[in-house]
């Protein structure tokens, strides 16, 4: 018999035209996506462009009597003008009009008709209703579920008659967790320890270890910096540097110490407005300054004030609301209830941010982005505090009268060394642009976004009208706004963030549109789970580590990413998460991984930006001033990707080749492309060549192993797992061919080994190092090496 399961499943999990014949039609899942995409542009929220005074985005609008014509008559599709028009025989009268190129499919027409027949029930848009903790679903295979998350997943998998994938093997699991939580591979010793631990708590122990790692902060910062468009340069025109690396350290430290997300939010948007703000809170307020600025001669202040205000609202709405408010700069949103007035009202809240001083920053690099402060990074300050404590403790020892003379001398030496270190640390102050409130600028609504037009009304600071308001005395401030974001009635903030956490741990969100929680975004595949996670997040005090741990402790997370035939047939897109996803590592992690496995990685946390090798002349098109790029000639060369100098106009070619964004605007999801440019980068970028040659020396240091033993050792260093005989044979051939070549022409070996700063190998024959380097290059270029499985 024909297998009907694919049909049933696609009905369950596709997101347009989904309700099958006997299923209840759900407005948000089945109807809103159709109305939004096909109708709202002319019959939606934008009052200025609404046609025929008909709006279909609200219940009242759809039922309104317009001169005897009623679009939607509940229960009576044949009396509904909507049905008449979408099925009209005359093409000129049929909706949507042909020129809109938004034809309805027969299935969509059928759904709309049945929805009206069933009473035309409207629901509030899912993302605009505050999440409530849903009941846990009942499932058959309770034993599979490790926690609540699994119940939600299992419910849908069981309905689709699809089994979850088996658990991934231990090595894959450990690598996955390492990349997801700290962005670095496990060491072979860590693999051994995990494999040897067969207690039930083994997994949780690793999870806790990684969550406690300082590198967890770096990994999470990688993503947050994409959202807030962190970069080291101003972006427009001369793309001069500005001072903001302390903000990056703040973000790393915030995740590392698990600063509650509501506090994290508050400090960034309004840290400067807190009573007696700490240095960190002032640094955090640098968030408001991360936008692109121009230092071009001939910038018109009024125009750029408008640009900066709009940029901030775009970013604010993208980061916290999952909103696409950019359109509302010129007109009401076409699909979502954001009005143009909402847009300028939000600018009015942010109107106390001092942009005037930015215009004084000239076209030098770095330019001045006053107000700026000078401060030490949280890491340096912590170290100084530790030193002070150590000195006190040591001083107590010397103070005790019976200490031997040599002990006393020894202690004094130690104290002197600590004092020297402290002095060095004190010198590491860096500048950071921060927010300082000024008298709020009056903000007018700009008709059609035209900054030359002063005819628009003066705006009051407020949140978007369709969302909960803020009850405050006097002007709504950035503090009020930040507190509002994490108030229980705010429907978006928690959902947006946990959906993005899910993306970091599965490669896709529960709603795939990470940056659009509006009508045109995707309804989540598991709305109840998303709500459960959102409520859990809020009720647990916005505890990010808690959420990460909940998710990675689930059976869902631990599934294999290898699809079964059933998975490929029934759920090729993996909408049901009946398996893990496999994806290429992000740009920074590809770099970090090569440095880590070669032994070059310098894992110092925090600090100024790093400058890896870069092709000569790459900055030739920068000017005002002209720029030369000096790669780091110390160990900063080997720091992690999160620290790489982020030149907005000319991002490092390696990062760019692997899809890191320019950070001109918010990036919630990076594209994953697969280009010849990225292949060339892995093959020939000196960073990877140097990593290969340094790794080759480590291979040769395994003097008690023969070639095969060395190859097996090397494989495990890079990929954590054991190689198969077939795989080793491929590498052995490569080794032998290169050994012959380099032995015959040792001068080429010398040429190859000259790449990079790392010391030249002395203890091994050059042809041997070069030949092994070829093998290491092959390993660093493997798809598996740059994949998270």
């Amino acid at each position, binding site marked *: 018999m024909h297998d009907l399961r694919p049909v049933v499943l696609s009905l369950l999990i596709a997101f347009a035209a989904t309700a099958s014949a006997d299923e209840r039609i759900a407005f948000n899942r089945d109807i809103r996506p159709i109305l939004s995409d096909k109708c709202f542009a002319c019959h939606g929220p934008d009052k200025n462009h609404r046609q025929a005074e008909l709006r279909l985005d609200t219940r009242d609008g759809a039922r309104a009597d317009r001169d005897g014509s009623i679009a939607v008559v509940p229960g009576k599709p044949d009396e509904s003008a909507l049905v008449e028009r979408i099925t009209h025989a005359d093409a000129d009268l049929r909706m949507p009009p042909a020129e809109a190129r938004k034809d309805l499919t027969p299935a969509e027409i059928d759904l709309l008709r049945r929805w009206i027949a069933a009473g035309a029930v409207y629901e509030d848009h899912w993302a605009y209703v505050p999440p409530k903790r849903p009941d846990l679903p009942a499932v058959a295979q309770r034993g599979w579920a490790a926690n609540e998350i699994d119940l939600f997943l299992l419910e849908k998998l069981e309905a689709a008659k699809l089994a979850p994938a088996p658990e991934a093997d231990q090595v894959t699991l450990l690598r996955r967790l390492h990349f997801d939580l700290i962005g670095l591979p496990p060491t072979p010793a860590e693999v051994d320890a995990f494999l040897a631990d067969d207690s039930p708590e083994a997994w949780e122990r690793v999870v806790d270890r990684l969550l406690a790692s300082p590198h967890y902060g770096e990994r999470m910062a990688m993503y947050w910096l994409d959202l807030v468009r962190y970069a080291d340069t101003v972006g427009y025109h001369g793309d001069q540097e500005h001072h903001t690396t302390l903000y990056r350290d703040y973000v790393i430290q915030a995740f590392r110490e698990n600063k509650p997300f509501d506090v994290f939010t508050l400090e960034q948007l309004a840290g400067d407005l807190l009573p007696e703000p700490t240095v960190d809170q002032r640094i955090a307020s640098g968030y408001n300054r991360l936008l692109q600025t121009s230092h071009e001669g*001939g910038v018109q202040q009024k125009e750029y004030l408008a640009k900066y205000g709009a940029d901030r609202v775009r970013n604010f709405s993208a980061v916290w609301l999952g909103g696409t408010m950019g359109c509302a700069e010129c007109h009401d949103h076409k699909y979502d209830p954001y009005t143009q007035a909402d847009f300028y009202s939000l600018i009015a809240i942010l109107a106390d941010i001092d942009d005037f001083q930015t215009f004084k920053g000239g076209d030098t690099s770095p330019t001045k982005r006053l107000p700026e402060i000078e401060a030490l990074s949280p890491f340096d300050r912590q170290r100084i505090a530790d030193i002070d404590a150590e000195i006190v403790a040591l001083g107590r020892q010397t103070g005790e009268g019976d200490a031997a003379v040599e002990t006393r001398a020894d202690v004094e030496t130690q104290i002197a060394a600590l004092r020297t270190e402290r002095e060095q640390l004190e010198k590491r102050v860096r500048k950071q642009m921060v927010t300082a409130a000024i008298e709020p600028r009056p903000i007018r609504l700009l008709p059609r976004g035209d900054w030359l037009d002063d005819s628009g009304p003066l705006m009051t600071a407020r949140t978007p009208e369709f969302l909960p308001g803020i009850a405050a005395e006097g002007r709504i401030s950035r503090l009020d706004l930040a507190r509002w974001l994490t108030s229980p009635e705010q429907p978006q903030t928690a959902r947006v963030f946990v959906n993005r956490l899910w993306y970091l741990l599965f490669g896709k969100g529960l709603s795939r549109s990470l940056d659009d929680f509006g009508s045109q975004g995707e309804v989540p595949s598991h709305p109840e789970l998303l709500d459960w996670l959102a409520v859990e997040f809020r009720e647990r005090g916005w505890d990010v580590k808690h959420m990460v741990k909940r998710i990675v402790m689930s059976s869902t997370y631990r599934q294999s990413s290898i699809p079964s035939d059933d998975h490929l047939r029934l759920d090729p897109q993996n909408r049901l998460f009946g398996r893990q996803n496999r994806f290429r590592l992000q740009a920074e992690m590809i770099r970090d991984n090569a440095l880590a496995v070669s032994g070059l990685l310098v894992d110092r946390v925090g600090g100024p930006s790093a400058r890896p090798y870069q092709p000569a002349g790459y900055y030739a098109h920068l000017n005002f001033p002209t720029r030369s790029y000096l790669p780091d000639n110390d160990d900063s060369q080997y720091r992690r990707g999160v620290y790489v100098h982020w030149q907005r106009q000319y991002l490092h070619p390696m990062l760019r080749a692997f899809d890191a964004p320019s950070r001109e605007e918010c990036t919630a999801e990076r594209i994953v492309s697969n280009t010849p440019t990225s292949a060339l980068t892995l093959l020939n970028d000196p960073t990877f060549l140097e990593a290969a040659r340094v790794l080759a020396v480590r291979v040769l240091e395994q003097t008690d192993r023969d070639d095969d033993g060395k190859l097996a050792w090397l494989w495990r260093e890079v990929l954590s797992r054991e190689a198969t005989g077939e795989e080793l044979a491929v590498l052995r051939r490569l080794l032998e061919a290169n050994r012959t070549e380099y032995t015959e022409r040792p001068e080429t070996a010398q040429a190859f080994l000259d790449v990079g700063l790392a010391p030249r190998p002395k203890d091994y024959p050059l042809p041997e190092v070069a030949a092994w380097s070829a093998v290491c290059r092959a390993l660093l270029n493997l798809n598996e090496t740059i994949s998270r499985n």
Partner: protein
Amino acid sequence: MHPDFDAHALSRRTFLGQTSLGLGAAAALSLIDPASIAADSTPLGGLANLPHFAPRAKRVIFLYMSGGPSHLETFDYKPELERLDGQPMPTSFTAGQPIAQLQGQELKCLGPQYKFQRHGESGQEIADILPETAKIADDIAIIRSLHTDQINHDPAHTVMNTGTSISGRPSMGSWITYGLGSESRDLPGFVVLTSVGGRNPQPISSRQWASGFLPSRFQGVEFYSKGDPVHYVRDPAGVTRAQQRQVVDAVSELNRIRQRTVANPELETRIAQLELAFRMQESIPRLMDLSSEPKHVLESYGTTGSDGSFAANCLLARRLAENGVRFIQLYHRGWDHHGDLTRYMETCCRLCDGPTAALVNDLKARDMLKDTLVIWGGEFGRTPMFQGKGQSAGRDHHIKGFSMWLAGGGVKGGVTYGATDELGYHAVENPVHVRDLHATILHQLGIDHRRLSIKAQGLDMRLTGVEPARVVKEILA
């Protein structure tokens, strides 16, 4: 005019006709993450429903005169401005208008600095500073009524290339290669070359050729006519071609072994891309080496070889066009003449005028002009008002009316379209907005600008945006 022209059939034919395809080349056909892009892409990257109608041009060469060349010294002669030279600029023109560096200054007229003559059978009016362009007057359609929205370089470039000043949108070349794909097996579909000379050059951001929310394989790839032609294209020192081959083969073999376990569709693509990368390591340096060009060709462009000059880049543009590159953009960054206008105009025109005409003539001689759309112009024009930077007169940025020209690719030669007012301030007759230019370029490539869209942030994004845009049919053959 070209009923038999079908870019996709052609590209498929070209592709399948290659017998020297290396390992995995068939898979090179799908270059991107299958999850990140609609499944309706055809083999070489174009969309299945494109072109929408028979195209007149297969490819575009955009000679981008960055900085904003003066229309008043090139293609838009204004005798009235000459008469008012040194007089106050009538405020009726400037009141309430955006002003760049001349904010708050006394505005006075600056007459045209060159004589204009009529040229060719068509009698097109062109300034004496462009003697070689004057000789191709009958091949070019001059538009004198361009206007744009942004008065500073960076955002104005972004409008010219992406249709909006907001960062993050795909550039024109990315849209076009996304829509039509590439005809080249081992070159990117969108190539950018930049030369110098003129006033202290304006910076140009890689945003201008970025792919925005389109997959990054559609982004413009910068080629350099000096040094390494493309980043990381050279084999490492101490590694022979044969050794590089061995590494690539070992990687592919190991990837294939792994594939038996993981069945990862992405992996086939990666194998193919590595193979393509290896081929590019040979094909790109070969293409960029001008030593195979006959002496008379080099001389006609005014170059002796790949030296980073605009002349060399024009010749490279022709070679890229011959090799199937879809969109070629040549930046020359010297055109921002706030002061010393005549001195810098002379420099820029000396560097650009001859090679530009040589390129058009060369394309014509090879019968390629008929399906190659050549565009000349910058992000805006310059004020009719005097600016006093430097030793002698200059002009400020100007966005309300400026000139560009188009040639080939189904564009009528020898016509002048649109007009500015008597002082060259506002485009008053048949104004052409940048988005109209975009619509026209797409139209010549067989694309209805209203129908080339991609969903991003919930919107159907288009190069021409949401405002109405018009194909400038009046200049089409």
